């Protein structure tokens, strides 16, 4: 019994310490004048690895999620004779919820785990220590480009996901199920507001990008430098980032659309 209480206390302290270390790591990486022009190739490389290589999974899953939304929505809407509301249904659910959230979950699985494993292995093979030996700050050389690449790439990926999903909904709704094409777009235009829906969705995905990238970098940077430690850190990245995204999604939704 006593041991369990001790364990609880140790876990709490460990979590708090992890939060503190993540914040300090972020400050260390971003403190001072950022010089993206000097390290242009580092940033390019990371945007390629984090963003461009995630493009395929985002395109395919966006298409299929839009198609499923249209198929499921149609069967319910057809019962009420409201098929022309299929456009707003697909567009609003993608822009407000599914776009940012599913992109963040896929991003955590596809890019976040890779970031953690890469940095963890750098630590295990003492590349980070040797950088320090050469008076190169690993926080600014390794962490900062990956952080900015993640924060820039994920909102762009979410935008692409939304657009592809709406086109997928068009494919199923209009071309297969026979909803009127003009009605699909015009009902969408009448119900979707740029400020309220598109911009808020982008804000959501920026917040999620920050959360997922910081968690992935922190787990990698703090990993136990053994093969087992790296595998644990990678798993933790996906689990923690997914839970954090879903939790923050509720808070953001309550703030943006709850009132």
């Amino acid at each position, binding site marked *: 019994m006593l041991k369990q209480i001790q364990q609880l206390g140790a876990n709490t302290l460990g979590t708090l310490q992890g939060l503190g270390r993540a914040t300090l790591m972020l400050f260390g990486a971003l403190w001072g004048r950022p010089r993206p022009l000097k390290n242009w190739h580092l940033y*390019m490389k990371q945007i390629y690895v984090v963003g461009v290589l995630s493009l395929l999974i985002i395109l395919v899953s966006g298409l299929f999620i839009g198609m499923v939304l249209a198929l499921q929505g149609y069967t319910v809407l057809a019962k009420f004779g409201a098929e022309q509301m299929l456009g707003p249904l697909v567009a609003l659910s993608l822009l407000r919820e599914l776009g940012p959230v599913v992109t963040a979950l896929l991003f955590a699985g596809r890019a976040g785990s890779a970031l953690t494993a890469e940095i963890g292995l750098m630590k295990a093979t003492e590349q980070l220590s040797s950088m320090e030996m050469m008076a190169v700050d690993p926080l600014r050389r390794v962490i900062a480009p990956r952080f900015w690449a993640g924060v820039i790439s994920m909102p762009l990926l979410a935008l692409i996901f*939304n657009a592809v999903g709406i086109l997928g909904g068009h494919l199923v709704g209009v071309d297969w199920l026979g909803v009127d094409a003009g009605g699909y777009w015009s009902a969408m235009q009448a119900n979707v507001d*740029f400020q309220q829906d598109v911009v808020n969705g982008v804000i959501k995905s920026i917040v999620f990008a920050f959360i997922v990238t910081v968690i992935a970098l922190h787990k990698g940077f703090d990993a136990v430098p053994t093969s087992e430690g790296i595998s644990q850190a990678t798993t933790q990245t996906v689990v923690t980032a997914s839970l954090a995204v879903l939790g923050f999604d509720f808070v953001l939704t309550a703030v943006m659309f709850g009132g």
Partner: protein
Amino acid sequence: MTSRKLELFVGFFVALAIAALLLLAMKVANTGVAGSDQSYQLLAKFENIGGLKVRSPVKVGGVVVGRVESIKLDPESFQPVVTLDINSSYNNFPETSSLAILTSGLLGEQYIGLQPGFVDENVEILKNGDYIEDTKSAIVLEELIGQFLFNRGNQ
């Protein structure tokens, strides 16, 4: 991977994202199509606006000519004052025109129907900031049922 190829891929990625944003802004949210055009404002007092909302359409014979810009309550008469943003290309409504709050379909959204009035030599054309005097309120279902029951009781 050469640096040139890398930059090409990243450029393609960013261009794709910009194209997606343009699609969302133009085709999905339809920004600026009503807002960027020149418009003028008309005002109208109603007894009851029902479920009318800001950005509800204003229609003449089913054609959208403008949108509801704001809804306020007159502090003295306690009547709702609705400001309408009308597209400047429709600038020749006579002051005898009337407004009614209508519903599209049985459960649809409410909109304002504008019925253009007659034109005479001493009837002026509505300008920016003018009031439309002849308005019909929204039909409130409860009042309608109440009226019906009241009439039945009298018989």
